[in-house]
């Protein structure tokens, strides 16, 4: 719950398609592309004129559900970087940080974070032994806080340059804008809506070379 509206995050299905054939020591193999994941975000009592919902600094295209003030969208993102997957030049885009940006007051008024692995750095080498451990793992990976800080500035796509930065050994996407050096400012951007997948924000598309 944030102000009056309610944000909800759910797992969605992401098809793991079979990749092209690769030959290995034991004959040929066709891996599946397990690098992608998808979530659904739903918001109720939302005022689109005033607020913008962003995920990792990209505006989420919200589709109305037919209920006044209720919107839904899918967010598709690269969660892992296996050696064989589509688009090797695109890095992982996690954790997902969702922000509700108040355009009138120029701030993110709150948000939530979704991690694909333990935020404290615990590596899960083994599968959960039972449903309790599985549930505890799921609970660990979600925080109903940790919005992006700073004053808000909308950055039109043309001004944004993405670069890969090494953060603790993992490649992260970072937005840089030549003109503004002040880190206190929260920049967010739009990616051009997809004609084929209008209900899904595909975070990989923010990596498009310009």
């Amino acid at each position, binding site marked *: 719950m944030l102000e009056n509206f309610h944000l909800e995050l759910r797992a969605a*299905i992401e*098809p*793991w*398609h079979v990749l092209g054939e690769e030959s290995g020591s034991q*004959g040929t193999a066709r891996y599946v592309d397990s690098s992608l994941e*998808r979530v659904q975000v739903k918001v109720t009592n939302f005022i689109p004129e005033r607020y913008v919902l962003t995920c990792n600094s990209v505006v989420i295209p919200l589709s109305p559900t037919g209920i006044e003030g209720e919107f839904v969208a899918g967010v598709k993102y690269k969660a892992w970087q296996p050696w064989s997957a589509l688009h090797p030049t695109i890095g992982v885009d996690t954790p997902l940080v969702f922000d509700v940006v108040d355009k009138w007051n120029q701030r993110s008024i709150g948000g939530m974070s979704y991690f*694909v692995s333990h935020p404290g750095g615990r590596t899960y080498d083994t599968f959960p032994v039972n449903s309790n451990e599985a549930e*505890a793992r*799921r*609970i660990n990976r979600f925080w109903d806080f940790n919005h992006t800080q700073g004053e808000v500035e909308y950055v039109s796509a043309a001004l944004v340059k993405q670069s890969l930065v090494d953060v603790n050994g993992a490649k992260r996407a970072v937005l840089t804008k030549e003109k503004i050096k002040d880190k206190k400012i929260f920049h967010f951007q739009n990616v051009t809506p997809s004609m084929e997948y209008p209900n899904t924000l595909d975070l990989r598309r923010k990596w498009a070379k310009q």
Partner: protein
Amino acid sequence: MALKVVLSHKTHYKYDKYISLSPHVIRLRPAPHSRTPIDSYSLKITPKNHFINWQQDPFGNYLARIVFPEKVKEFGIDVEIIADLITINPFDFFVEQYAENYPFKYNDELQKELIPYLEITEDGKKLHKFIKTLDLKKRPINDFLVYLNTEIYKHLNYTIRLESGVQTCEITLGNKLGSCRDYAWLFVQVLRHLGLAARFVSGYLVQLKADVASLDGPSGPEEDFTDLHAWTEVYIPGAGWLGLDATSGLFAGEGHIPLACTPSFESAHAIEGMSDKCETEFEYSNTVTRIFESPRVTKPYRDDQWDAIYKLGFEIDKELEENDVRLSMGGEPTFVSIDDMESPEWNTDADGEHKRELADKLSRRLVGSFTKGGLLHYAQGKWYPGEPIPRWQTSIVWRKDRKAIWKDPELFADMNETYTYTNEDAQKFIKTLALTLCVSDKNVIDAYEDPYHYIMKEANLPLDIDPMKADLKDSLERKNIAKVLSQGLNTPIGFVLPLNFGETKWISSGWSFRREHLFLVPGDSPLGLRLPMDSLVQKPTHELPLHFEPDLFAEVPELGKFRKDAKKRFKNAERFKVNEMKDDMFVRTALNIEVRDGKLYIFLPPLNHTEAFLDLVASIEVVAKKLDIKVVLEGYEPPHDLRIDRIKVTPDPGVIEVNIQPATSWKDLSDNLFTLYDDARQSRLGTEKFMLDGKHTGTGGGNHVTIGALEPSDSPLLRRPELLRSLITFWQHHPGLSYLFSGAFIGPTSQAPRVDEGRLENLYELEIAFSQIPQEEDVPFWITDRLFRHMLTDITGNTHRSEFCIDKLYSPDSSSGRLGILELRAFDMPPHPRMALLQMLLVRTLVSAFWKKPYKHKLVRWGTQLHDKFLLEHYVKEDIRDIVEFLNAEGYA
């Protein structure tokens, strides 16, 4: 999963007269460090005329200070807490490096801050003696804490003490008896003696009744339960305060809600204050009520919801019967080990030791629960490319007329037991069996491994390899060579009785070979699969003509009785020793007996007459009983026959698959599934699987739903191809049906792609095929298969990989492919049988609806919307709501 509860704790004092109360301090509000989320809190004090101030004590605990300006005759404290019992992993922390092992020293700063929590106030002899019994060797701090917690738990006996206050450690240890307060305080002092900072916790304990009784160990409380409780917290750098509950020997989890945590128990009292002298009546109660439970895999529906579902099942039954649909449904549920989440055999591989063991346990249970006098049979399963040997398959076979095939299940050897049968036993068995079948026991021949092959193999081994030895890492072939060489090439490995069934009797014939002996084809398959068929006489004088696979569409008489006859023949065999019978015809099939690993395996020949099969099995049982030998039946299964039913247990990648027999009525269907799920659980096979990140997934093997009829000619799909059209169209219109039940593995290259998840022109072609379905005229059985066969495939043309699979509908290839069955493959394994049944009921209802009124519409070109919208919960839910409205409008409410 969410489960919210209301804890209600009421304490009431009634005094015999008006008295004055000193200011009271109440410590009944969850402490700030409670990990269990507290949604709401409320404290009501009676009488109304009081002042209340909230404050925090030096340790951060919340205190309510109550002042009564007037004399009172009663004093009531009502606490209500709404808590969200999410699962908390008590071990979710990283310990600072210096504290990873016990013993460690706190750093100077911490040492100073923790002074009150290190104060030793009890120093008695018994306490010292107890500490001396503890094993204080260096070890990881977690293990050490678990150890201490368990030691105290084991050392003491629990009692409920109504008197107030906490016992000294000496008393507790002396009596080996205490309440939770005494346990907690003893533990605090023990920890401090060991140099660890500890504090006393007073709090609420909530324990909920588990949905499913535990297979091992205690199942927890019979009813939901809450009470004031006390436990201990220890400070571990990196982890913070860790709750340890020595009363139960567990770490504190979501059910432990701390109220006050203090260095000494005196300052943790829930209610503290004084009153004038008087007579007091005291009442208290603790209750816990579940107020919100999201559906979960162990309890997907509330009982009233399930009752409604169950009842609807019978109404659909009635409608199906009225309209003469003759529908039967089966399924292929899959199970995984509940103990082993890691091994390849439970994730990717088809075969595995543990899997064989559990499959066998399950099969034996199924014989007991599904059959009376059923047969347990081990056959060779499918052989998939890339796998070294064919898979196995266990069948549980019984007669539909419920007469016994095999009377005494004790005569089946237990695959998980060891036996010490020898070649002598095998020889005696096969000779007695031959005589019991009224064929000559002279025809029994010894089977040998082919020495030439193994001598060559041995000669080709590298110099530095001992041919008699092989270890686990070696290939199957190497192991086999070592095995064969070490058992010697001149001992027979089994015995062969050439055998087949003529029109009226068993027929055997002598087999002779150019090399004099019978040398087996090299390998490690059962003997029966390695017979040198190419070396048999090509053109004998009289040969038994070949039988054909029985036609499932033909009429057959009822099955007779076989045991009595077999017994009689056994007796005759003993009396007359008929072993000189003439062979009148040459046969090319054989029954084989072989001892492997001390177990006696009987390899059944292929038989096309069910009667002959049953007679043979009855004879084997008679011999087994008389010779007191436990046997394993393997080889060829009984022929497909509508008079017998079977369940097959087979390995599939990562899972065990159970092909459950089709059932017509809702009652049978539900009984079967409940029994199967329960038997599986008792065999330690479960339905829950998780990904590394904790996401719940299906077993990975699916739960394909099959629809057809008990007799292929009755199949509603063969009788009305329109039904298939309706189902395909409806599923195509409602992608929610595909993705709600599918689990995560979907799309064109999955196991069950939708008709619109493949070739672009598929929908266009399907519509043409729909237009070719005969209307108002006789429908030949073959037409459904021919019309749809090439469209119900994946993009490569694989007919098995399709949401709607008609491989077993009316395949021209074999009789066993003409079963009139449609397989719906986009169902993943539901974790609970009630979920599986609801899915089945949905299919039944749609079949019934479309039988009455075919669903004929143009197909929808979803395009990219399919994966843009319908992979999101919102759109799937909308879609399912639409289906519900459709069914309501059709009269199913």
